[in-house]
């Protein structure tokens, strides 16, 4: 694609609409590939060719219904659009013969319970109760992530065009402030405020950084967006760079996400060729260069100052704040670090407007949140819901509830920095404030369902073990406190606890929360404190009987 001028975007949308024809989309995110989607895709391509069918077999990103992978969506004129799940190469013939040629849906393969709960902000302006409402993941599973044209055809780059031709950087920041968007990486810091601070900071060089170091075990929202809709992240970064005055940016992506890295690198190349990155974007004065930098297996590098150290080629250890990255970050320059999900929210906000965004979710937590709903639930996968949706809706209605014969014990949110919500509190609305009030947190979006067969003490040990492994080791409270707490938890897991253990856990927790240098250490005790609060009986049972009676 040659360098685009801003008035050429409409033309692409028109062209795309006119040339719409029948298609089959195969979900080829990492989950899909793991389940064998590549074989399904090839079988569909070969099968369609053998039958001489005029149908477009496309690759898309992750639709989010990961439990039912491989997923195949079929759009044929005269037949309602149908989503098929658990598709294997053997079923491909059936789909091609029955659905495409005979125009008869293969009902036993179809998964309407998934399809009808998926609404995106591209089809509807407002969410429906009890259903997902996709803003961040609007394009995942709907477009070919490697096609810039498809991205533009679905409304992409309208936001950037508006910013560059109609709004000043200050106005862009105001709009984001008005929208109330909060950082989706876990801290929930108002994005507009962060942008304003970075814009106002003094520095010859400013940087935008995308935090793609999604390290929470059990969270993969960012991966899906990077794989399934890379252009939206890039557009978001471009808007951010324009707003704060940066001309250089980095996407820091985990090395464990090779597909995401490849998709983003491909998207950067395409965007550059089309004049959407590089010099004079869309014919304006604004220029931006983006580069991918890989992580190397350190969860702590999700923390902003550790991330900065990592990009600088050093050990990923945090620095004391102040100064905050918005004032002094990469190589001393003001740096704005935003999470992938935060960035993917920006194109819709800047094209549909801050008021629209505010109308979704709650007053203090507007918009939606993507969750990775996994664990002991019937339909694990990615779920995007408006803030304020009760947890029960997510787990039972969208997630399908517990596995057969089991009961939900608790839902863990916030990953290793978060806490548990016991089953009796499942009506809690999902907002930053409500979750924090219960001693947990929103976190980056991991949501793990535990049932009556899971041990609370054991999962706490698991999370603490994670923090101990990932501790950078710089500060004593986290480095040593975490290890000492883990030793106690290991004993408790084996039923060899002592009565002093619980008090020791509380004391070390307090110390780590107060004196750790960064968020990892400060929040590592959260699972312990939360589970002690809601499941004290499980801890009591873990204390060795002889010692308990002493």
């Amino acid at each position: 694609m040659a360098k685009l001028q801003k008035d050429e975007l409409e033309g692409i949308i028109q062209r795309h609409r006119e040339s719409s024809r029948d298609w089959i989309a195969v979900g080829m995110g990492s989950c899909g590939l793991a389940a064998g989607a590549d074989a399904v895709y090839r079988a569909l391509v070969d099968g369609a060719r053998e039958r001489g069918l005029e149908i477009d077999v496309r690759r898309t990103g992750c639709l989010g219904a990961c439990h039912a992978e491989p997923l195949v969506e079929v759009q044929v004129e005269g037949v309602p659009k149908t989503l098929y799940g658990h598709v294997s190469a053997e079923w491909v013939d059936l789909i091609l013969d029955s659905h495409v040629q005979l125009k008869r849906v293969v009902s036993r393969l179809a998964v309407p319970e998934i399809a009808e709960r998926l609404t995106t902000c591209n089809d509807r302006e407002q969410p429906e109760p009890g259903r997902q409402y996709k803003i961040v993941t609007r394009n995942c599973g709907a477009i070919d992530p490697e096609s810039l044209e498809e991205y533009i055809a679905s409304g992409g780059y309208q936001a950037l065009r508006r910013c560059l031709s109609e709004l000043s950087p200050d106005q862009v920041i105001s709009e984001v402030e008005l929208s109330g968007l909060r950082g989706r990486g876990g801290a929930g810091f108002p994005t507009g405020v962060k942008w304003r601070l970075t814009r106002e900071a003094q520095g010859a060089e400013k940087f935008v950084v995308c935090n793609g170091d999604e390290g929470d075990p059990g969270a993969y929202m960012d991966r899906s967006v990077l794989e399934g809709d890379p252009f939206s992240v890039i557009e978001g970064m471009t808007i951010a760079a324009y707003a704060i005055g940066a001309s250089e940016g980095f996407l820091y992506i985990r090395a464990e996400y090779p597909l995401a890295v490849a998709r983003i690198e491909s998207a950067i190349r395409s965007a550059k060729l089309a004049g959407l990155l590089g010099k004079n974007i869309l014919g304006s004065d604004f220029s931006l260069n983006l580069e991918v930098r890989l992580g190397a297996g350190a969860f702590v590098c999700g923390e902003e100052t550790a991330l900065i150290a990592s990009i600088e080629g050093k050990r990923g250890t945090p620095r004391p704040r102040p100064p905050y990255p918005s004032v002094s970050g990469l190589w001393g320059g003001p740096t704005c670090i935003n999470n992938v999900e935060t960035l993917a929210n920006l194109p819709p906000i800047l094209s549909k407007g801050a008021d629209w965004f505010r109308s979704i979710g709650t007053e203090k937590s507007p918009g939606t949140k993507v969750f990775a709903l996994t664990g002991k639930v019937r339909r694990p996968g990615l779920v995007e819901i408006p803030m304020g949706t009760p947890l029960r809706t997510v787990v039972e209605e969208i997630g399908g509830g517990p596995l057969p014969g089991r009961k939900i014990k608790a839902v863990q949110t916030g990953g290793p920095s978060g806490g548990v919500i016991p089953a009796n509190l499942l009506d809690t609305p999902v907002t930053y404030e409500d979750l924090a009030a219960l001693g947990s947190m929103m976190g980056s979006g991991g949501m793990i369902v535990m049932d009556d067969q899971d041990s609370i003490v054991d999962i706490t040990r698991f999370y603490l073990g994670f923090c101990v492994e990932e501790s950078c080791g710089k500060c004593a409270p986290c480095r040593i406190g975490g290890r000492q707490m883990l030793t106690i938890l290991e004993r408790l897991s084996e039923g060899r606890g002592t009565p002093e253990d619980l008090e020791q856990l509380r004391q070390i927790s307090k110390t780590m929360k107060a004196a750790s240098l960064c968020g990892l250490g400060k929040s590592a005790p959260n699972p312990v404190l939360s589970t002690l609060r809601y499941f004290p009986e499980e801890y009591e049972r873990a204390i060795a009987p002889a010692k308990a009676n002493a």
Partner: protein
Amino acid sequence: MARTAARTVRAKLNGIEVVVPEGTTILEAAEKVHLKIPTLCKHPDLPPTAACGICIVRVKGTNQMPRACCTPLEEGMEIQTHDPEIVEIRRKVLELILSKHPNECLTCGRNGTCELQRLASDFGIRQQSLPSIVPDLPKDESTRTIVLEPRKCIACGRCLTVCQELQNVWALSFLERGIDTRMAPAGDILLADSPCISCGQCSAHCPTGAIFEYDETERAWELLRDPELHCVVQIAPAVRVAIGEAFGYPPGTNLTGKLYAALRYMGFDTVFDTNFGADVTIMEEGTEFVKRFQDNQGELPLITSCCPAWVDFMEKYHSDMIDHFSTTKSPHEIVGVLTKTYYCERKGLDPAKVRVVSIMPCTAKKYEIQRSDDMFASGYQDVDLSLTTRELARMIKQAGIDFSSLPEGECDPMLGLYTGAGTIFGTSGGVLEAALRTAHKLLTGEEFDALEFQPARGLDGVKEGKLTILGREVRVAVAHGMGHVEDVLDRVRAAKENGDEPAYHMIEVMACPGGCIGGGGQPYGITDALRLQRAKGLYTDDREREFRRSHENPYVQALYSSFLGKPLSEKAHRLLHNSYKPKPTYRR
């Protein structure tokens, strides 16, 4: 930390109002109102690493607990530095650190001076409620100058700041992460195989016994015990103004006389003074300078070579500068070789039965005395043993000497009487000053009236000066702290490449910030204030000397007239000069 002196900040600490310049940390501000916030990883000489978490304070009315050592005080802030809860948290942090630290105080070299020990004492730690998780890591004595005991390391990060950022040597690093984090030489090799230059700054800043000088006091006692041996001792300039700190004296107090007395009490047969060696160094090096400057024989600038850590650094990292180095040995080596030749001849002693011990502010001297064959020019090892100031302090205490009540003693003047030029060797800029005093005389035949050459003095990392001799401009520079030397050398190289006049004619380099008075073997607690106080002690000594120029030293004159002939004579070359060769940065 940039400070705009114009802007101030008004805040409250424990309800007490304080007004400080913008950028002042909470820790610094607290000192101004006589509040002492406990610290562990913070060293007053170094920027904070923010590692330990002991110095946390509370922002009143919130649950924010920032670290006082690195958080700037902000306008209107209200800080609580102490309350029962804060103290409880600090104590728990300390308990955690202690759980990972071996319980070996009684047999550790830092017993009595350890900062962790002092904190544990201050906090009244009476029990250890946490299991001990001390790692099993080996000791590294490979350099025989500095000993690493990673088991005792509390990961404060000071040694890294010093070795990497200040000294630019990069011998030490943190390997692995989390609970497995450990301090180790680059790539987990032995220290002796690393770029380590033995400057000892790591040991001078380490809060515990994790990095400690290679203690050779036992060997010293053995020598003194042996009735067959004639033991000779010499003291470096920097030692006399710092040893007092181990005995309650104010820093910078000149205790030369007491040292002479103490050393004799300890059993040394002869007491010399390294400052005499310094005077001889100036005779030789001054003459070298004249040859290069006046007679165009040899490279300019002339670079001083009395600092063995600097010599090692140069051989490893800047071997292209070898021809610039003065070939004159360091003062204590000169006293050593002259003891075993000149002194023995005069006194009819068998050099095979003579042992020379030097007391140095320096750990690198332990390496220097066996550096090459040149150090055996007398036919024996010229200096047999080098001890640090800290080791001497321990020996004085072991000997049961009541240092403060000692009457002043005398040295043996043959290789002991010194001039002011010799004594200022111990501070950064002193060698240059001393050299100028004599070079001027050698070049012009007249005494240099600017005895105190101010541009050479002070704590700036690089100091430059100019003077005119015989109508020619002489450009000089002083660098101290290895981190500052690269720039200076690059200027020298640039001038050479462009075919210009040399950027400088003489450069003095000391590896330790402040010069030898800030040496790696000096008493603990170095700060810039301390460096200035110790330096002042030497400058005062200079002013009080009968002779202030090396060439005026009557015993130096006697040495030349009766033994060496003249500077750079064949004998002087054989005994008092050495050579250099490039060394690999990594031996493995």
